[in-house]
C-alpha cells in the first residue's frame, strides 16, 4: 500500500475539497454583489420617483408648499422598508427644511447621487438636485436593510457550504476507496506474480478503463507465468533427458573400472568420467545463466549473506592451489560486508572469478582480491591482461581465452555465469580499463549497479 500522502486518490479528494471551497466562495461573492446592487438600485428608483414628485410640487406650489410636503413625509413612518430622509437648503448648505443635519458631499449642479451617511451610523442612497436659484434638495433612502439580508446570505452559504464540503469529502473518499481497491488489486497481482491468476477474470474489456487495465494486466501476468512455467518445464526436461543417459553411460564406466583394468585403461576410463562431469556442468551453467537472467531484478528469495566470510573462505580454499600454480594470492577483506543474495550463487560467482585468474595468470604472477563495503569486490592480477578487442567478448558464453599456452580446459561459461549472477543481485561485473602505467593484467570489478 502506498502511504496516504502519496496516493493519487487522497490528492484527488483534497483537490475536490479545495475546488469546492473556491467555487463556494466565488458564488457567495457573486450573490453578495448582486443582492447588494439590486437593493441599491431599488433605493435609487424610489429616490428618483420621490425627487420627481417633490420637483413637481415645487414647480406648482413653490417653496412653502414644498416645505410642508417634506415635513409630511418625514412625519410618515413606513410600516416596513426603509425610511426616507430629506434636506432642503440654500446654496450655502443652510437647512430650510428636512431631517438631515448637513449637506452631504454631493454636487446638486450635476444631480450627483451616491451612498451617504445618515445620522451617526446609518447609510443611505441619496441624490441631490438644484431646484431653483439658491435652492437645492437632497433625497436619501436608507439602505441599512442591506446588512441583515447580506449577512443571512453569508450564513446560508456558510451553513450550506459546510454540508456541501462534507458531502464532497465523503463521496470523494467513497469513490476513491473503490478505485483504490481496484488499482490495489492490480498492484498486488504484480507484487505477487505467482498469485496473479484470477486478475484476468476480474477485468472486463467492456467495463470502464480500470476494468480494461485489469484485464490487460491479468493477461500479461498470465502470459509471464505461462512463459516461466514453460521455461521451467523445458529446462527440467532438458536436464532430465541429458542427465539420465549420461548417468547410464557413467554407470558402464564405473562397472568397467570395477573390473580392475590395467592402469592405462583405467586412466582413460577415469578421464571419460570427468568428461561426463564436464558436460553436466556445462549444461547446469547454461541453465543457471538462463535462470539468473530470468530472475534479474527480482529480489524475492534473497537473504542477507556475510560476503566477508564467504570471500575469505573461498580465498582460503584457493590458497593452496594458487601456491602450487606458482601464484601469490593475497586477499584484503573488510569485515562485516553483507549483501542480500543467494549464498550458493554468490559463492559460485567468487569461485568463477578465482578459477579465471588461476587459469590465465602465469607462474610467478600475483592475484589480489579486495572486498570493501558497498559491496565492491575487485579481483586484480598482473597476468597478460585482455586484448582490447576482447574486453566485452570475454563475458560471452563459450568464449575462451588463450590461456597459458597449455590446453585450456573449461566450458567457456565461467565469466558469463559470473556476470549473470552479479546482475541477478543488482551488481555489475566489469573489466576495468588497464592503467597506462600500471602492471597490466586484468582487473575485474564487481560493484553495486548505479
Amino acid at each position, binding site marked *: 500500500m502506498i502511504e496516504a500522502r502519496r496516493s493519487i486518490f487522497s490528492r484527488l479528494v483534497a483537490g475536490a475539497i479545495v475546488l469546492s471551497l473556491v467555487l463556494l466562495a466565488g458564488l457567495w461573492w457573486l450573490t453578495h454583489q448582486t443582492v447588494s446592487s439590486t437593493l441599491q438600485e431599488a433605493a435609487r428608483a424610489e429616490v428618483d420617483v420621490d425627487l420627481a414628485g417633490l420637483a413637481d410640487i415645487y414647480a406648482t406650489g413653490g417653496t412653502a408648499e414644498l416645505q410642508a410636503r417634506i415635513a409630511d413625509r418625514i412625519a410618515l413612518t413606513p410600516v416596513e422598508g426603509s425610511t426616507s430622509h430629506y434636506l432642503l437648503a440654500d446654496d450655502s448648505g443652510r437647512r430650510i427644511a428636512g431631517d438631515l443635519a448637513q449637506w452631504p458631499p454631493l454636487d446638486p449642479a450635476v444631480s450627483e447621487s451616491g451612498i451617504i451617511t445618515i445620522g451617526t451610523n446609518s447609510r443611505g442612497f441619496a441624490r441631490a438636485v438644484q431646484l431653483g436659484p439658491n435652492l437645492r434638495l437632497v433625497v436619501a433612502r436608507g439602505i441599512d436593510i442591506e446588512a441583515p439580508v447580506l449577512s443571512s446570505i453569508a450564513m446560508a452559504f456558510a451553513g450550506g457550504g459546510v454540508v456541501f464540503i462534507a458531502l464532497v469529502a465523503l463521496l470523494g473518499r467513497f469513490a476513491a476507496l473503490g478505485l483504490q481497491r481496484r488499482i490495489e488489486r492490480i498492484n498486488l497481482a504484480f507484487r505477487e506474480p505467482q498469485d496473479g491468476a484470477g486478475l484476468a477474470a476480474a477485468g472486463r474489456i467492456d467495463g470502464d478503463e480500470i476494468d480494461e487495465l485489469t484485464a490487460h494486466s491479468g493477461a500479461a501476468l498470465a502470459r509471464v507465468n505461462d512463459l516461466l512455467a514453460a521455461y521451467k518445464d523445458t529446462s*527440467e526436461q532438458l*536436464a*532430465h533427458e541429458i*542427465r*539420465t543417459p*549420461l*548417468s*547410464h*553411460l*557413467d*554407470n558402464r*564406466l*564405473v*562397472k568397467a*573400472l570395477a573390473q580392475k583394468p590395467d592402469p592405462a585403461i*583405467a*586412466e582413460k*576410463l*577415469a578421464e571419460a*568420467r*570427468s568428461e*561426463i*562431469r564436464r558436460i*553436466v*556442468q556445462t549444461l*547446469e551453467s547454461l*541453465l*543457471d545463466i538462463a*535462470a539468473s537472467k530470468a530472475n534479474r531484478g527480482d529480489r524475492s528469495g534473497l537473504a542477507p549473506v556475510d560476503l566477508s566470510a564467504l570471500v575469505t*573462505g573461498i580465498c*582460503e*580454499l*584457493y590458497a*593452496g*592451489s594458487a601456491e*602450487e600454480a606458482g601464484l601469490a594470492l593475497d586477499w584484503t577483506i573488510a569485515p562485516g560486508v553483507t549483501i542480500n543474495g*543467494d*549464498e*550458493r*550463487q554468490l*559463492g*559460485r560467482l567468487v*569461485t568463477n572469478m*578465482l*578459477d579465471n585468474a*588461476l*587459469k590465465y595468470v602465469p607462474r610467478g604472477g600475483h592475484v589480489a582480491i579486495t572486498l570493501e563495503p558497498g559491496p565492491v569486490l575487485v579481483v586484480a592480477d598482473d597476468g597478460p591482461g585482455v586484448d582490447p578487442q576482447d574486453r566485452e567478448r570475454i563475458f560471452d558464453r563459450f568464449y575462451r581465452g588463450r590461456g597459458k599456452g597449455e590446453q585450456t*580446459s*573449461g566450458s567457456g561459461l*565461467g565469466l558469463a555465469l559470473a556476470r549473470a549472477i552479479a546482475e541477478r543481485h543488482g551488481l555489475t561485473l566489469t573489466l576495468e580499463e588497464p592503467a597506462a602505467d600500471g602492471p597490466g593484467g586484468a582487473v575485474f570489478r564487481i560493484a553495486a549497479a548505479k
Partner: protein
Amino acid sequence: MPMRILYVEDDPRSAAAVGEILAASGDVLVWEENGSAALLRAGMEPFDVIILDRMLGDIDGLTITRRLREGGIGTPILMLSALGRSSDRADGLDGGADDYLAKPFEPEELVARLRALHRRATGREHSAVIIYGAFECHLKARTAFRENRHLALSPKEFELFRYFMENAGEVVTREMLLRHVWKMDFDPQTNVVDVNIGRLRRKLEDGFDRPALETILGSGYRLLDGRR
C-alpha cells in the same frame, strides 16, 4: 547390519544400476516403479531409507515426500534426481527430503549418504571422540592424533579430517567434501579439493611410514586405518 531400502524409480535401467550398487554394499533394495505403489508399500513395510526419483510418471517425488510425512512415516528420504541445480536441491530439501543427490553420481557417494541418513535416523551419531585405526578425532577439543601423536591441523584441515573420520573406511568423493566441508554444491574448475587433500595428507603422513589417504581414481579418497 544391512539396510532395507525402498527405491521409487520409473526408469528400469537406473533401478538396476542402483540395485547393483546396493547389492555390492550388502544392502537390500525393494524397487517400486510408480508413486502410488510406493506409497502403499511404504505404509505396510518398514524401511531404513527411502530413495525417491524426483520426476515420476504418476506422482512426483516432492508430492510423495509430503504424503509420506502427512501419513506419519518418518523414514529418511534421499531424493535421487536428474535435476541437479542448486535451486532443484533447495526445492527438494525444502520439500521435506533429508538429502538430495543428482544423477550421475558416484556409487560410493550414494552408499555413504544412505548410511549417514540411516545413522542419523537411528540416533547412532558420533560421540565426542571418533577412533579409527591409529587415528583419533576429538570433536569438542577439535584435536587430531595419530598413534597418540598430535597432528597440527588448521581449522579447515580439521573439518576435512573430521569428515574423513565420520566416513572412515568409505570412499569420500570430491562432491561430498565440497558440500560438507566448504558448503559448495558445484565443482570449481580449479583443483582446489585435490590440493587441500594433498596438504592434509602431508600432515597425516609426515613422520609415519604408512599412507593415511588412498586416492580412488576417478571418484575420490578413502581414509586408511594408518596402522603399522
